[in-house]
């Protein structure tokens, strides 16, 4: 009997990977075994620690959130929309779920029994690699440039190790043009070659194609045991077949293949099958070595850097890392946390190098990163802002001490410039005598900003409220922070001015939901994502965070998250803003890397339709948060 309902489900599945790789008839056969599940809003599909189900799931309509518990707090990792797959864990692992899947709205889910789908996975390499990659990368649909596919698996480790996670999906470096032998070569001579070349394996080829491999293990278990004489031809003892992989394999995949086939060597071929030419060999050593080349190692390299050139190399590697992570759809929160660690390490090292040259500082001091670095959001090589606070000294020493710190800051900024950061246009740097002064002077400075906020004054000073303590004496930072928050508490006038600043650029939607594009010649018909979309969110997060007395969090995303905790009645809006910020940040970073610019201006024409919709969806929260600012701080008096 024809089953039109199964056909209907197949019609849906065929649009989404990995089902795109299957024939329609296969999809119908699979669909006949599907169970359709309805989830009410906030209903749990599976919980962390639950035994794995016998099915995996595809979202047919609605949305399912995936979350993990980290530091006793439930953190939403990602949201699965229409066509996204979740619950792949039982394919690859026997243990329990490591994530919680909970519907975020009324949802219809297709449950596909693993037993039914398994034959198609093993029988179809593109399906297998999709699932492996999705599972391993613990991120979104690896095929989809539109970021439509979402997080698919549940093996995310949400902790400091996120740093290690990122490099795990970089392409692996392996030995190209490996040493090969023919099947009639004598084992003794092959062993001699292996010894002289210091390699652990030799691929046996025929017409450039791999037919087997001989490894240390084969020599040990088959020759030295006396099973075969040492003069035997290699085809008697080689291991067949050799496991082959394609050229662009990632570290994660390589490791997965080794575990799956229980081998220590993988043969790389042109198209990944054993029927094409050999192009390299991956050993366990490569996997280990590749994992050593991770953010942790970059941090070590920074500590050992002796010159600004060394730091530049590290920063360039970071750009590669960010680019790769963006390509692989690693969540932007992971990327920023890794990048900001490295950025602050670079700053620290630049300061220590400057101190080595200038001699021991005369008094205690503290170095702050400001602006995007201060908010730990800098991914592109944009401008750097910073300030320096030194301990109070007697008036007669003041000039001398200040001169020392100006000289030191000058060196730090020279290093930054060599690394490739842009100069701050307004000179908001520690080598500027306005922004390098004693604690008392700084307290006075902040008091001026807080108590007599002129429109012009607040504009330049707002970034001074996004500061991140990088180097020096934490006592100075603590004193300054407490001073600032005691002055800002319930200071309606100050909030009002910060708020006015935050709503200066209205949400960027024109009539008929068109994008507001730029009119001036240089950036004509581009969309200014930085000033029109990102800055309003950054400003909004700042004014709310300060008014709520949130100390120590400067990151926009985290500020919104914290606000959602503190104000449950507006939690939804804050969380939407947090998400919107991430999405926008993603667009800007991707574009900035592509065009090698600061990513401020997006070319609307180049965006796909899906991307445009994604971008537009970020604008409503901007509009809503600006309304909230107007009401909260009663800006009608001021505007």
């Amino acid at each position, binding site marked *: 009997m024809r089953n039109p309902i*199964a056909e209907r489900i197949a019609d849906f599945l065929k649009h989404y990977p990995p089902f795109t790789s299957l024939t329609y008839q296969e999809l119908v056969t699979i669909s006949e075994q599907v169970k359709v599940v309805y989830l009410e809003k906030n209903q749990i599909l599976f919980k962390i620690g639950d035994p794995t189900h016998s099915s995996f799931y595809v979202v047919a309509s609605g949305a399912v959130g995936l979350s993990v518990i980290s530091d006793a707090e439930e953190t939403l990792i990602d949201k699965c929309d229409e066509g996204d797959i979740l619950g792949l864990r039982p394919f690859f692992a026997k243990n329990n779920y490591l994530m919680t899947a909970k519907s975020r709205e009324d949802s219809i889910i297709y*449950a596909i029994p693993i037993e039914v789908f398994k034959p198609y996975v093993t029988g179809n390499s593109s399906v297998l690699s999709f699932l492996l990659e999705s599972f391993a990368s613990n991120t979104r649909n690896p095929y989809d440039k539109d970021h439509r596919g979402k997080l698919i698996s549940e093996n995310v480790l949400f902790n400091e190790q996120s740093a290690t996670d990122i490099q795990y999906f970089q392409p692996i470096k392996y030995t190209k043009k490996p040493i090969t032998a023919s099947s009639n070569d004598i084992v003794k001579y092959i062993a001699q070659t292996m010894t002289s070349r210091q390699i652990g394996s030799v691929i046996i080829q025929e017409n450039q194609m791999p037919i087997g491999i001989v490894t240390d293990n084969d020599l040990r278990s088959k020759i030295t045991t006396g099973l075969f004489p040492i003069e035997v031809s290699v085809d008697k003892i080689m291991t067949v077949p050799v496991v082959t992989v394609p050229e662009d394999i990632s570290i994660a995949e390589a490791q997965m293949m080794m575990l799956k086939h229980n081998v220590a060597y993988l043969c790389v071929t042109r198209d990944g099958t054993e029927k094409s030419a050999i192009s390299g060999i991956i050993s366990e050593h490569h996997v280990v070595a590749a994992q050593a080349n991770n953010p942790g190692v970059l941090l070590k390299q920074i500590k050992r850097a002796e010159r600004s050139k060394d730091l530049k190399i590290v920063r360039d590697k970071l750009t590669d890392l960010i680019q790769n992570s963006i390509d692989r759809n690693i969540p932007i929160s992971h990327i920023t946390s890794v990048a900001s660690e490295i950025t602050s390490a670079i700053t620290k090292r630049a300061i220590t190098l400057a101190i080595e040259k200038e001699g021991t500082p005369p008094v205690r001091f503290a170095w702050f990163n400001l602006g995007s670095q201060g908010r730990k959001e800098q991914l592109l090589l944009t401008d750097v802002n910073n300030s320096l606070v030194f301990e109070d000294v007697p008036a007669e020493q003041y000039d001398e001490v200040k001169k020392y710190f100006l000289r030191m800051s000058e060196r730090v900024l020279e290093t930054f410039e060599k690394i490739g950061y842009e100069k701050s246009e307004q000179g908001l740097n520690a080598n500027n005598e306005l922004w390098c002064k004693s604690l008392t002077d700084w307290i006075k400075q902040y008091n001026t900003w807080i108590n007599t906020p002129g429109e012009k004054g607040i504009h330049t000073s707002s970034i001074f409220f996004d500061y991140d303590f990088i180097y020096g004496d934490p006592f100075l930072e603590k004193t300054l922070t407490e001073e600032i928050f005691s002055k800002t508490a319930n200071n309606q006038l100050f909030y009002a001015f910060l708020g006015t600043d935050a709503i200066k650029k209205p949400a960027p939607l024109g009539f008929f939901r068109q994008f507001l594009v730029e009119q001036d010649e240089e950036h004509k018909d581009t969309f200014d994502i930085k000033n029109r979309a990102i800055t309003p969110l950054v400003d909004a997060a700042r004014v709310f965070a300060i008014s709520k007395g949130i100390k120590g969090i400067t990151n926009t995303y985290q500020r919104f998250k914290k606000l959602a905790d503190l104000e449950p009645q507006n939690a939804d809006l804050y969380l939407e803003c947090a998400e919107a910020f991430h999405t926008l940040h993603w667009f800007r970073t991707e574009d900035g890397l592509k065009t090698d610019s600061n990513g401020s201006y997006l070319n609307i024409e180049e965006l796909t339709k899906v991307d445009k919709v994604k971008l537009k969806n970020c604008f409503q929260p901007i509009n809503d948060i600006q309304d909230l600012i107007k009401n909260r701080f009663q800006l009608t008096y001021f505007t």
Partner: protein
Amino acid sequence: MLDWLKGKGDPSFWKAYLDSFEKDNLDTPVRYVIFDCERTGLDWKKDSILSLGCIGVTSDHIEIKDFFEVFIENKNEAHQNEAVEKLFKAHSHQTVSESEAMMQFLNHIKNSTLVGHNTNLDIEMINQALKRMNLGKLKNNVLDINVMYQRFKNLPEDQHHTLEELCDLFKIRKSHRHTASNDAYVTALLFLKLKRKLRMV
């Protein structure tokens, strides 16, 4: 002697159908069969069923493989209106006789609980068909999603909603084509939602 009391000469499928109600299987989860009919018209005496589509629901999910669909040859050609003609031209399904269809239908549903939208007419027409075969009435429990919705919203009994209206209310994408099986599937989705909202076990 007893044969006569039980209704001598009753076909074996009818006996099997009746027997399925004898067993007390309290342990197994209730099987719901969501069904929908296409008919020649709305008069339960004159009109007849053209097709029947069923989809099963067991413990909170739709089982796609628990599917049944049958198309019935239409003896009463005079009744065929334009729309129905179109339906048949569009997909020339293999049709069976009404009695054959009923036999298959009973074999499929067994003692399940039947669920449909505005079930009264459909059930009555099935009973009429069974009567033409000299058989008794359907024994199954019947649930009507319209009644379930009334109960969920505490609406008066005379307030009726079409399948389309219910789909809109529950944000279910309607099928583009109105066939018995498509409507049964949409009804099944509605049933899952209502079942959850009414906290039916």
